[in-house]
């Protein structure tokens, strides 16, 4: 290493010795450049620098290392500086002998034996329904988006649009997107499909809530009928969340439309399942079993539902909270459930539903905040989109979304994720390093 105090008195002998070292270094450099010498176990010491040629193993070529703090070089005498430059030159030349040790990336080979069931949403004419488009989700035998070699997920996720049968408080961003159609569920559904590309429509029959409007099941049937007429995508029929009333509504709805492959949202353990499941079993409807963030209860409700309804007509909803509001519970519940399913737990081998509308429950999604945090009209849809993406990575299959921008971005992400993983311009990846970017 270099000495810290510069030598004040340096006699002729020492100076001469230094000079000889410098000339030696220059010669070594020249020789190395021409490839006429190889050095082994050579150590040359001078005041401000040290060059060490260390031989490691017999196969390895010498790697010289110049160890000199830059300050020492700055303060050094011209002669020493020159030597430092020579040393660097030697090093650069000598370094060419260190080659990249090439290895291949050993791809992951996880072992799973379980399979998530495939579930169909909607029924086509051949199947007795009137849907022009149907959706199949599930069928996974590997965790989502790990790109295990030789595995391609059988079905991509699908995105439905939320419609409410009665005016409820909706964020401004949603009002901006649908305007007056919010007063008319049929029109709302039509805009979802025709303008915003929703792949299914989720009609939430909140008017049937006994503590709200208490609309009779007959009215609910009329609403569902009108929507089935207006759009030809699968329809997800949501209740009000009142366990007694939902049983009545679902019974009437499946009676009225036994062959449309409706999806019922949702069944839970507070309901008298025996009063509704036998009716669902008779038709071709699918159910969403709701078990908020609780895998034990998810197994319970699934086991119970199996008594009437075939496994391939059950979707699981483990619930999700918007970012900042319990997202991690839903995310981890989904990850655990899917792993358990793939490891062979048949009770959890169901595709996941995500009620992304919950994202709007986050205050940051709808509240007017200090201008630094941006307009709520951006924050809202972004919150819904990001919450949905988190669920996507946990393996979510079907989404109920409120805002068209979420549907648009989720569809783009789906297209990207299902494309062959091969960037088109890998050499441009580092462009960000050296480009001036707009500062907003």
């Amino acid at each position: 290493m270099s000495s810290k105090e510069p030598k004040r008195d340096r006699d002729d002998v020492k100076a001469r010795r230094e000079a000889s070292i410098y000339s030696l270094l220059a010669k070594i450099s020249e020789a190395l450049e021409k490839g006429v010498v190889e050095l082994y176990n050579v150590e040359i010491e001078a005041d401000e620098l040290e060059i060490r040629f260390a031989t490691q193993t017999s196969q390895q070529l010498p790697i010289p290392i110049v160890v000199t703090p830059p300050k020492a070089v700055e303060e050094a005498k011209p002669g020493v500086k020159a030597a430092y430059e020579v040393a660097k030159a030697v090093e650069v030349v000598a370094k060419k002998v260190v080659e990249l040790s090439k290895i291949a990336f050993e791809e992951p080979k996880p072992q799973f034996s379980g399979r998530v069931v495939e579930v169909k949403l909607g029924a086509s004419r051949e199947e007795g329904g009137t849907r022009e488009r149907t959706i199949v989700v599930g069928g996974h035998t590997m965790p989502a988006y790990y790109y295990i070699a030789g595995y391609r997920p059988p079905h991509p996720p699908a995105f439905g649009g939320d419609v409410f049968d009665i005016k409820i408080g909706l964020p401004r961003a949603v009002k901006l997107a649908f305007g007056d159609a919010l007063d008319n569920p049929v029109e709302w559904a039509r805009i979802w499909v025709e303008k915003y590309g929703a792949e299914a429509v989720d009609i939430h029959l909140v008017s049937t809530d006994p503590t709200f409007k208490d609309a009779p099941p007959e009215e609910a049937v009329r609403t569902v009928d009108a929507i089935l007429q207006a759009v030809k995508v699968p329809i997800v029929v949501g209740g009000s969340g009142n366990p007694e009333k939902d049983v009545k509504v679902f019974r009437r709805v499946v009676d009225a439309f036994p062959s449309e492959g409706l999806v019922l949202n949702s069944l839970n353990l507070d309901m008298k399942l025996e009063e509704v499941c036998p009716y669902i079993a008779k038709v071709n409807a699918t159910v969403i079993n709701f078990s908020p963030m609780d895998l034990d209860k998810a197994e319970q409700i699934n086991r119970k539902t199996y008594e009437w309804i075939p496994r391939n007509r059950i979707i699981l909803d483990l619930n999700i909270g918007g970012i900042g509001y319990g997202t991690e519970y839903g995310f981890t519940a989904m990850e655990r459930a899917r792993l358990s399913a793939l490891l062979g737990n048949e009770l959890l081998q169901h595709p996941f539903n995500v009620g992304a509308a919950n994202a709007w429950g986050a205050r940051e999604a709808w509240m007017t905040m200090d201008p630094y945090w941006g307009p709520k009209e951006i924050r809202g849809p972004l919150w819904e989109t990001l919450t949905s993406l988190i669920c996507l990575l946990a393996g979510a299959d079907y989404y109920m979304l409120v805002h068209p921008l979420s549907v648009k971005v989720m569809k783009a992400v789906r297209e990207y994720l299902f494309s062959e993983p091969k960037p088109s311009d890998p050499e441009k990846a580092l462009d960000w390093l050296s480009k001036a970017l707009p500062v907003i």
Partner: protein
Amino acid sequence: MAFAVRLASLEAKVEDCPPIVEEEKYRESYEKLRALLLPPVKEVVLKSPKRVVKIGGKYVLYRHEMRYHNPAAIAIDVDDSMERDIIVKRVSAIEGFEYEYVGQKLKLDAIAIRSVTNDPKQFARAVSIVAENSSLPLILCSVNPAVIEAALNVLNPPHHRPLIYAATKDNWREMAEIAKRFDVPLAVTAPGDLDLLVSLVKTLSEDMGLKELALDPGCFTGPGGLSYTIKAFSWLRYKATNDLWKYAGYPLIATPISVWTQMSGDPKDVMWWEAVLATMLMTRYADIIIMHSLDGWVLLPQVMWRFQLYTDPRKPVSVPPGLREIGKPSETSPILVTTNYALTYSIVLSDAEKAKVNAWLLVVDTEGLAVDVAVAGRKFTGDRVAETIKSTELDKKVKHKILIIPGKAARVSGEIEDASKWRVLVGPMDSSEIGKWLERNWTQEKVKELMEGA
């Protein structure tokens, strides 16, 4: 034994037991234990004179297996073509970023300085301006070794310990030499080529002897790009944690900033996609994230999701149930009922305090779940509310028998009345309305009316 359990669950460090470290006879066991407890993903340390940021140090793939360590650091960029006052302004915005959430202050962690000019002097100038005006650790971004060297001469490690970004297939020899000379961590990048990435890792770690690396497999969007990025991050972390493959066992760097050169058009769209990439890669194992947008709406969901992702999955973020005071409540003050989810509790409390009300806050044990989820999951029930009333002896604190429950719990108002025999008023949907709501509904006449009705 207790220590061993804490050690195994990583709540304690081997170093917490001095004899094993100090005494010669334990030397071998100490080394063995240390090696055993080392995370499969190395921990890399970035430093400024005032702040330390640790990245990596991960043990598991899934957060339910064990709490994730070292929350992903978020770095925002400045570049060396910027005027001094722009740099200073941007740095102070990065430093000043703060959002209060569950009683925590969510902040940004580092500054990435990019060399746009490719001029060592210009870069050194920018780096010294940042260092003078910031307390955050730095990332020096350039593939030109001379540029990086110039900046390190200014920063003078170990005073500062920046991450240098990055070694590539073309410059790895020079970058490795610099990383070694200054003893700083080195980023390695091989966009779109995992074979090259691990080859560089092998060469730099084994042949060149570097210990602290961080890996960037490239950050792409669009068809072929996003799928590659998610694949690369997933494969790297899977290989590190499941197969303990040492060449994958380093922190992962995500650069959502790269959307700014991959996309054109409305900057709002670019920012949107930067947010998308940041959230996806934070979820898929990124340990440090370099971004360009400094807009609140892009960063807010990132810092909030990070907080959640890195909480202990075994312990919900909850507060003890019971009765709290807001302001100076009396025996005629209203009683607000809420859950013991830390976030719900702290929001209700801060909203009620902001509204300057005097009230009682009855915190029900919902096992750390928020109101809507607790209602749906049967954790916020008539019985639980009744239980809490009893255990807090609420009837001795007030003269009335009226509860105000959250609007989102309207569905259980009936069962709460049945189970508790108290009158229930359904309050506002959001606690920010508490002040106004009480003004309208908690008047002497109305309370009297309710009491007489009961």
